[in-house]
């Protein structure tokens, strides 16, 4: 820096500093609805800056440079197209997929360091291994999560002694890692064994976890990928990677805790208990499910003072958010006060319902979260439940035997009438019966959310 010429290395470092600053500002702005879009754009500028400066000054041979550009174009191009095309309802699994790719990339960096044999001190080697381990687990685990949410893997595979098998894989991975550090020049097969075992652990850990817990798991893997990126940042002396990776690691950990808390489950519970399989023994549910015709339900809604809508995953699957908002607009024209009540874990990710309702154009001052709305159910004439189940199950409050006892719920059972739109008589995601459906004031409107909402629109119009 003395004199006029700045070394290229300093220039690269300064661009990383600016990028890290933009990432943090971006994340900060993303935490408020009004500034959120500008937030992701600031972070995007940081990413482009860091990438271009790195590309310009990394001093690759022409051949390596063409490999870099080719891989960026193919990987980025595929992600661009898939990201633009994916339906809003499928967002959670796309986040899982892209997150897994990041973990895989961190693992690949570790693999390059190890196979390349360029590694240096024991400390560097250890950090590269830890990052590679976390990245590999996040990669294969995220791919399984993607497969489950996408419906490619429909069963939660569980067998006796599964935890012992997982523990054995973990011990094997650590042993391979220790052997790599101990030996002067680790043979390639040993390195391969390390990565294969780590990848297997991610698969084995994720396979037994049920669909209802996937949001927590994806969030956890997001945090893990961040950590892996941070560790590989240490290996490569790359401050941008250390800062961005660690920020995401910490933020992701907190986010995971918030999600687990909203479901009243601890993280270890999510990872190590086989929820929903044996937990169905919650006692039998009193009362029978009483069906209702859409015409009657429409009249009921049209002549209400106040309607609270509780959307759930069923609305998301049926892509019914637009129809539901159309129905609500119609009710508002009739002078009905309409509110949306969103449980923290409605859908498959916290905030998933908000994204869908926002897509349909619902103003967010009509949307309330659990704490705001729970006192209002008593004054509601009708609570309209659209494809939600466990989040309105009063057993969580009343039945100590229920596996979801203690989970905060929306108090839909306190309202004068409840209409439940549901595909059939089956159980919810967690596989437990819902006491709400048997209550005296509850009526069931069977059908998928899209067509049921359509029928209700006709019925409300017919009602005057």
């Amino acid at each position: 820096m003395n004199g006029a010429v700045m070394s290229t290395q300093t220039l690269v470092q300064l661009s990383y500093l600016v990028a890290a600053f933009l990432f943090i500002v971006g994340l900060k702005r993303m935490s408020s609805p009004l500034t959120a879009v500008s937030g992701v754009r600031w972070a995007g500028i940081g990413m482009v800056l860091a990438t271009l400066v790195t590309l310009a000054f990394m001093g690759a041979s022409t051949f390596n440079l063409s490999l870099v550009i080719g891989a960026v174009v193919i990987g980025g191009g595929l992600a661009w197209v898939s990201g633009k095309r994916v339906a809003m309802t499928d967002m959670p699994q796309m986040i899982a997929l892209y997150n897994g790719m990041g973990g895989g990339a961190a693992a690949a960096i570790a693999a390059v360091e190890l196979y390349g044999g360029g590694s240096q001190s024991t400390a560097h080697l250890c950090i590269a291994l830890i990052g590679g381990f976390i990245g590999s687990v996040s990669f294969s685990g995220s791919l399984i999560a993607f497969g489950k949410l996408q419906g490619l893997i429909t069963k939660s595979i569980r067998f006796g002694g599964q935890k012992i098998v997982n523990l054995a894989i973990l011990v094997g991975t650590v042993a391979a890692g220790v052997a790599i550090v101990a030996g002067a020049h680790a043979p390639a097969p040993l390195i391969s064994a390390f990565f294969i075992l780590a990848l297997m652990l991610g698969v084995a850990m994720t396979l037994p976890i049920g669909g209802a817990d996937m949001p927590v798991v994806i969030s956890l893997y997001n945090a893990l990928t961040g950590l892996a990126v941070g560790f590989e940042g240490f290996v490569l002396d790359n401050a941008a990677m250390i800062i961005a990776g660690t920020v995401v690691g910490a933020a992701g950990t907190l986010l995971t805790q918030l999600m687990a808390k909203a479901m009243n489950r601890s993280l270890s519970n999510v990872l190590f208990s086989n929820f929903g399989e044996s937990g169905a023994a919650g006692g039998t549910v009193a009362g029978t499910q009483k069906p209702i015709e859409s015409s009657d339900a429409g009249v009921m809604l049209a002549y209400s003072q106040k309607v609270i809508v509780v959307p759930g995953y069923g609305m998301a699957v049926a892509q019914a958010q637009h129809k539901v908002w159309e129905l609500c607009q119609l009710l508002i024209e009739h002078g009905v006060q309409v509110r949306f009540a969103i449980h923290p874990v409605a859908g498959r990710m916290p905030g998933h319902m908000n994204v869908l309702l926002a897509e349909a154009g619902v103003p967010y001052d009509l949307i309330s979260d659990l704490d705001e709305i729970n006192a209002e159910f008593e004054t509601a004439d009708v609570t309209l439940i659209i494809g939600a189940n466990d989040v309105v199950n009063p057993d969580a409050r009343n039945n100590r035997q229920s596996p979801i006892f203690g989970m905060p719920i929306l108090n839909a059972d306190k309202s004068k009438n409840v209409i439940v739109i549901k595909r059939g008589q089956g159980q919810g995601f967690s596989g437990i019966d819902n006491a709400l459906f048997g209550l005296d004031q509850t009526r069931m409107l069977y059908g998928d959310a899209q067509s049921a909402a359509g029928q209700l629109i006709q019925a409300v119009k017919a009602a005057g």
Partner: protein
Amino acid sequence: MIDGVIALYIFMLAAFTGYEVISRVPVILHTPLMSGSNFVHGIVLVGAMVALATADTTLVRVIGSIGVFLAAGNAVGGYVVTERMLQMFVAAGKNRGKGR
């Protein structure tokens, strides 16, 4: 080369920053924010690029190329889905109050 202890300071401060930035977020933004933080760790792309740039054997070139491919997917895909999601909040914000 970043000195070991300095690196630990960076690590510690960054961890606090991440925790603080998220701690006051409304629930409605949890999914977009998870997606946004997913985009931010796409910075792994610069590391993957550097790793591939210095590759000198076929094996390392193959692994490095896979790494860059995956990292580019993380960065680009993460950005696209985050922006799409957040765009909707802008649209919904403009409709503010219309429903009443």
